[in-house]
């Protein structure tokens, strides 16, 4: 059963880790590129802060998704981490990413609520302008 040797499993997991980690990096980079392109369009067409905030929210979502992939690669790496030092480094990176994911999700939720509040206030103001009292 040579294909199930420790080395073979380690090599297979290493390839998987690299694939998943690269996918995470590609997602993060794509998010940045998309945000930058949308910024260019918005800078020419609209110049409202709320439009840029929406783009930032989408970028935050992409970052969170990339982080999930990177966390998945950390989990995969725990399958083969022979030394205590490697496990400690892995734990540090995983802790940082988990904390980041938490803060990023909270930030996205807060920004989304703020946008919803602003939109509701604007709608109310527009309705009041359209239907003056009296």
């Amino acid at each position: 059963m040579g294909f199930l040797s420790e080395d073979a499993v380690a090599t297979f997991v290493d390839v998987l880790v690299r694939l998943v980690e690269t996918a995470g990096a590609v997602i993060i980079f794509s998010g940045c590129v998309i945000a930058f392109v949308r910024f260019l369009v918005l800078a020419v067409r609209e110049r409202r802060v709320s439009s840029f905030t929406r783009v930032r929210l989408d970028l935050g979502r992409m970052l969170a998704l990339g982080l999930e992939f990177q966390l998945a690669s950390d989990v995969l790496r725990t399958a083969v981490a022979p030394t205590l030092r490697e496990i400690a480094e892995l734990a540090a990176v995983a802790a940082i990413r988990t904390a980041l994911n938490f803060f990023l999700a909270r930030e996205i939720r807060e920004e989304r609520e703020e946008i919803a509040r602003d939109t509701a206030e604007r709608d109310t103001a527009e309705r009041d302008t359209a239907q003056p009292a009296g």
Partner: protein
Amino acid sequence: MTDGVRDVVALGVVAAGLLSGAAVALVTRAPLAGLQWLLDFLLAAGLLRLGATGTPTALATAAAIVAVRQVAGLGLRRARAARAVPEPPAPSP
């Protein structure tokens, strides 16, 4: 993805963040919006660097960048929330 490529990509993200952050601040005339935009790009660059299997020093550096970004972001949100609270009416004579 090799560490060299990752570093170049992260540097590109930082450059894009600096450029677009400054432009957002100028276009919207809201410096805080530009700063938040820049911080998001810096976070992305930090995440890209964090993926590299580097030395503990590199890891600590990436973590510090991310921490600074989080603290600055929190400060900005608090400042904006404080400004959003309406001022109390002036006391009547």
